[in-house]
């Protein structure tokens, strides 16, 4: 059993989509859960947060019973036209052009609003009040392996994922001593940054292909900007050619950047079929549980040594 700080968060991101973030995150959580490993008496099974709120899929593998549900959104302006003098101060202050004064009318564009409240503050007539604009739901409940499962689901057509992720992380707070596994969305844009922000360690899942390497660079750069200690999991190990192909290039990149390769998952038909049927990697290959536990110990060790100088942690 590895020693744990108050709570320890591992975020899983990738850059490229479809590299195996959820495969790695769900098997990591299961390996750390009571099903697989004896935890300290009283210690909670891991908290798992599916932060890919635009297309959450971890429930397919961890099969949670989503007992609790909460609608969430942001506060957007509502203009009282009887008090509005159409001075335009609200539209001047809005960075997102979500409120516009057009002649004798003031219009709000909810899908552009970030909910910052500036327009309400600057309105000299007190004509703006704030109303909740629902953009998604948060759900949580117990999953297999007694995992505490939480996820956010952004409503279809809503353009902004960040507020849902932020509120999911605030809603599903970890207990002392609990492991937290965060499954991020692909890419390296705002939703990913919001998902991985504040994590203790960042796992970057990649594959030895041109796209895998290209997007790994972007994701690694993002992790560096956030001062997160990071390591790499290579999935579909073996597809991109050996040491003289993309396999070799990914390894060389990791070495050059000081990114430890934490785990290699082989490219196998058996794994692909199992995942397609909703089975977890550690159920398909139970012997891999030991590798995931070993990886988590390695990660704890790395956070003692990898924290960049001057990092805001």
């Amino acid at each position, binding site marked *: 059993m590895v020693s744990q700080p108050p709570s320890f968060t591992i975020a899983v991101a990738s850059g490229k989509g479809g590299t195996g973030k959820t495969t790695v995150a769900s098997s990591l959580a299961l390996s750390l859960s009571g099903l697989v490993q004896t935890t300290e008496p009283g210690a909670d099974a891991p908290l798992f947060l599916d932060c890919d709120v635009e297309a959450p899929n971890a429930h397919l593998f961890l099969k949670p019973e989503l007992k609790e549900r909460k609608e969430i959104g942001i506060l957007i302006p509502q203009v009282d036209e009887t008090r509005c003098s159409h001075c335009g101060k609200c*539209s001047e202050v809005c960075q997102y*052009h979500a409120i*516009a004064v*057009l*002649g004798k009318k003031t*219009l709000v*564009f909810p*899908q*552009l609003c970030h909910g910052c409240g500036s327009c309400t503050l600057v309105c000299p007539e007190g004509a703006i009040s704030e109303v909740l604009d629902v953009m998604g739901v948060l759900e949580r409940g117990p999953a297999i392996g007694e995992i505490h499962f939480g996820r956010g689901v952004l409503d279809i057509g809503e353009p902004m994922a960040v507020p849902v992720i932020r509120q999911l992380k605030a809603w599903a707070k970890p207990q002392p001593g609990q492991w937290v596994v965060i499954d991020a969305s692909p890419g390296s844009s705002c939703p990913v940054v919001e998902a991985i922000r504040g994590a203790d360690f960042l796992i970057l899942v990649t594959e030895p292909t041109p796209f895998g390497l290209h997007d790994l660079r972007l994701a690694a750069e993002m992790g560096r900007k956030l001062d997160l200690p990071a390591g790499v999991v290579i999935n579909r190990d073996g597809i991109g050619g050996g040491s003289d192909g993309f396999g070799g290039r990914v390894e060389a990149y990791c070495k050059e950047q000081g990114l430890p390769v934490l785990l290699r998952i082989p490219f196998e038909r058996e794994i692909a079929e199992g995942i397609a049927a909703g089975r977890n990697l550690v159920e398909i290959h139970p012997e891999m549980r030991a590798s995931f536990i070993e990886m988590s110990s390695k990660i704890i060790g790395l956070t003692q040594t990898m924290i960049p100088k001057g990092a805001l942690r």
Partner: protein
Amino acid sequence: MKIILSVTSPKLDSDLDPRFGRAAYYLIVDLDTMNWEAVENPALNASGGAGIQAAQFVTKHQCQAVLSGDFGPNAFNALKAAGVGMYLYGSASGVQQALDLFKAGKLEMLAAPTAAGHHG
């Protein structure tokens, strides 16, 4: 009557720019005097809300009609609220032809947005 056209370059014989919110330039034409002015689109590279900014530009210059090729949902709603008429270029090519067709009442007036919104 003052109208606005979305164009690709700051001159009276410019090509038409089919996109309202993301046009390179706006041509403000006073149909009574035929005085004109070209203004660069300040929101050309805005990350979002270009159509809304363009609509505010139109009302700031007190234009009563806009001629363009496409209006997104935000621009459409903003211009509609401001009571500005929206007309489509259709087959018109060049500013002069668009102005002639408009004056002859032969440009289609818009009742619904022509393009889907862009977000992100």
